[in-house]
């Protein structure tokens, strides 16, 4: 994987600004394609939260040449995959095809990008579905805990909400909102396309040139984002619910991918929460039997990300689980990590990073994502070098600066979650 990728990766910029990344992998007769746009829910106005998600749902439902059912027929009669998704930092169209069907699917993707029609009836249908999905988020205790955590942490910043938006904002979204969002962000100088599979890079490039080469970039600049400053204000949030388990989650404002602290935080996250030998797993699950799922996450983000640890536990164990999670995070800035355990965390993070680039789709995803975040495909080599260079002292210093006071999020039966944190509770 690594070897042939680095040998054959080819990055080209078309005249209109589209960045094309191509990797030839002859192993299987399939091609994975990722079309990234610098957009996503990060670019939404607060009053239009959910617009990128709704656009993704309606994008594949009409072009000036094809109706919704004609598009579905075309994709499915080829047995291909086509999807559109809005993430926090980007918008994505993905395709998987057998090699012979690539040209036809690329032509279709070109239509979707350049001439979607957002039919009124389809907007209405998908809007109702989005509202339903927003309500259904309340069905799972983990989701409730995660949603209230990010609202507490991010206030007015777009990261405060799931990409779905809220019932209030989605109820007001219109076809015009989709058209305006499309007009602002769907332009060739805002796009990265990666193609990985049984296709020569020059062929991939020529076909993309043929489908999208005559798409002219507008002379107007891209919209500038004025995102609100995130003001640290750690406070607890609690939802009482008759669940079998309590969810206990601790969040800390983290660093953006561009921050010098990013690498150390990635390592600390791996050390705490990644895998069967991670600190939280061993201390809270293996030694104390407190949880089945206990983990940590620190997603890579353009703006300040969140560093969180969590577990699900029997309601009567809520208090000791909260104490356990808290003391494990606090320990990181009190006791330096032993050289062996620090090296083990590096090995784990870098080993799993390499294992994450096995399929065509994974390779296409990683390189185009780095490009759209502004890190460049070279981040694939920078990342392991930078992780290797982090010292235990530097990691401890980062831990002391970031892990001061957690945002605590609790979901569980009232008797279990009441009185654990000093804060009026909801529900």
């Amino acid at each position, binding site marked *: *994987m690594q070897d042939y990728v680095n040998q054959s990766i080819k990055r080209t910029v078309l005249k209109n600004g589209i960045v094309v990344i191509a990797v030839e992998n002859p*192993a299987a007769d399939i091609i994975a394609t990722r079309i990234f746009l610098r957009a996503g829910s990060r670019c939404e106005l607060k009053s239009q939260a959910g617009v990128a998600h709704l656009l993704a749902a309606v994008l594949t439902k009409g072009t000036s040449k094809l109706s919704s059912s004609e598009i579905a027929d075309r*994709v499915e009669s080829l047995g291909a995959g086509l999807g559109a998704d809005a993430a926090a930092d980007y918008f994505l169209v993905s395709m998987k095809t057998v090699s012979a069907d690539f040209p036809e699917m690329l032509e279709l993707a070109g239509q979707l990008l350049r001439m979607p029609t957002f039919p009124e009836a389809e907007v209405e249908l998908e809007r109702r579905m989005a509202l339903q999905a927003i309500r*259904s988020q309340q069905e799972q205790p983990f989701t409730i805990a995660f949603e209230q955590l990010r609202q507490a942490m991010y206030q007015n910043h777009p990261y405060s909400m799931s990409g779905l938006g809220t019932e209030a904002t989605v109820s007001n979204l219109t076809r015009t909102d989709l058209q305006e969002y499309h007009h602002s962000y769907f332009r060739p100088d805002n796009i990265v396309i990666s193609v990985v599979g049984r296709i020569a890079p020059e062929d991939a490039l020529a076909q993309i040139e043929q489908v999208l080469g005559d798409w002219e970039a507008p002379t107007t600049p891209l919209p500038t984002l004025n995102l609100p400053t995130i003001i640290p204000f750690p406070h607890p949030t609690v939802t009482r619910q008759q669940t079998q388990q309590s969810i206990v989650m601790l969040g800390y404002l983290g660093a953006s991918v561009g921050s010098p602290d990013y690498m150390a935080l990635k390592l600390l996250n791996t050390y705490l929460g990644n895998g069967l030998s991670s600190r939280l797993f061993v201390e809270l699950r293996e030694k104390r039997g407190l949880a*089945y799922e206990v983990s940590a996450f620190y997603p890579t983000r353009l703006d300040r990300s969140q560093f969180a640890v969590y577990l699900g536990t029997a309601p009567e164990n809520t208090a000791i689980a909260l104490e356990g999670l808290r003391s494990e995070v606090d320990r990181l800035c009190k006791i330096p990590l032993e050289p062996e355990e620090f090296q083990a965390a590096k090995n784990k993070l870098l080993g799993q990073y390499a294992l994450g680039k*096995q399929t065509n789709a994974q390779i296409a995803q990683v390189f185009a994502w780095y490009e759209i975040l502004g890190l460049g495909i070279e981040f694939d080599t920078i990342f392991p070098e930078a992780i290797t260079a982090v010292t235990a002292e530097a990691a401890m210093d980062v831990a002391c600066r970031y892990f001061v006071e957690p945002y605590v999020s609790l979901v569980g039966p009232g008797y279990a979650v009441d009185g654990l944190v000093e804060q009026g509770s909801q529900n």
Partner: protein
Amino acid sequence: MRLSVLSQLPKVSEFPADVFRLENGLTVIHQYISATPVAVVDVWVRAGAIREPNEWSGMAHFLEHMIFKGTDQVLPGVFDQIVENRGGVTNAATSHDYAHFFITTAVPYLADTLPYLAELLLNASIPADEFSRERDVVLEEIRQAQDNPDWLGFQALMESVYECHPYGRPVLGTEMHLLNHSPEEMRSFHSCHYQPENMTVVIVGGVDRESALDMVEQSFQQFATRSDCRQLATKIATPLREIRRQELCLPSIKQARLMMAWAGPGVEELRSGYGLDLISALLGDGRSSRLVKQLREEEQLVSNVSSSFSLQQESSLFTISAWLEPQYLQIVEGLICSSLAELHSSPMSEAELKRSKRLLCNDYAFSTESPGQLAGLYGYYNTIAEAEIAVTYPQQIQGFQALDLQQLAQQYLSPERYAVTILKPND
């Protein structure tokens, strides 16, 4: 059963892996892939929940947890560290038909890690103190599942379809059963089933055949002393002769679920199973499939509808599920039954047949890309039938005619005989 499978299905000569039977009865499957720096070992054991006597419900899955708790030679946690410190990943899963355990790692580290996995599997000591602590972890796993409404609905549906057959009870077991298990009983279950003739060791990736065979031969030698296996009660589910209906009210859900199920043939009639897989694609795979098109896109009665076919050794499972507002439950169930009646009365069109075949054959290509996917595929098939059959799937699918499928629908998918579970939000 294995003979009838052999006689029914033509084996293709181009099975890309080698299959060996060692003297002790252990099956080893190996495939060398030159372009990958990854190696996978995946060990499949015919020791799933169907091997449990009724009163031992949950034992197979609990044992899968306890395998990781060490042997006289390897302390708990050591194996996890050895794999993860080398950047590898390890995990396991248990279902009704199997338990399996895998390591994914960079090629040079397979030799360091595989002997430890073999030691755990063959010589699990199941220490009493670890047993009671790990039981708490499994109880947390059950609590977490019980907070998931779709899991609850699915278990209720399985109980209704399969009644006292082990497919009707949850792999996780119940709290009551788990509290009654003892380490001695688990050791007895282990020494009965974790024997060479019940196990398949699959190695796929950048490891040559000689090294792979050497590693397995050296590590998989000393199996536990056999114990007598407990007699299993006869386990025949009463065929569905009516509509078995049940309704659950769940306060946490925001949308109703309609879940319908039919029992299909076991693996001895694999070809019929593949036909049902095609029917499932026709009904519920993609926007142009019959049910999605009618119920979601046109009549807009559901927010989601899907169909699924799961191959199981003794009786496969066909399900249709919809997410919808409670007021549409009755009408949607009626429309699904009409759709089945239509399958009985007229053959599907050539275009529909072609589309469904292409979807399934491409899905097969998309899901056999990485060493881990291939190892899983071979191991699974060898556990329930024969490894070589795995790769005949596309050829089998291509062989179907519309009339074959019409006949299979008449035989297995009755609109008058099925199990249905409805989940309703509390009013």
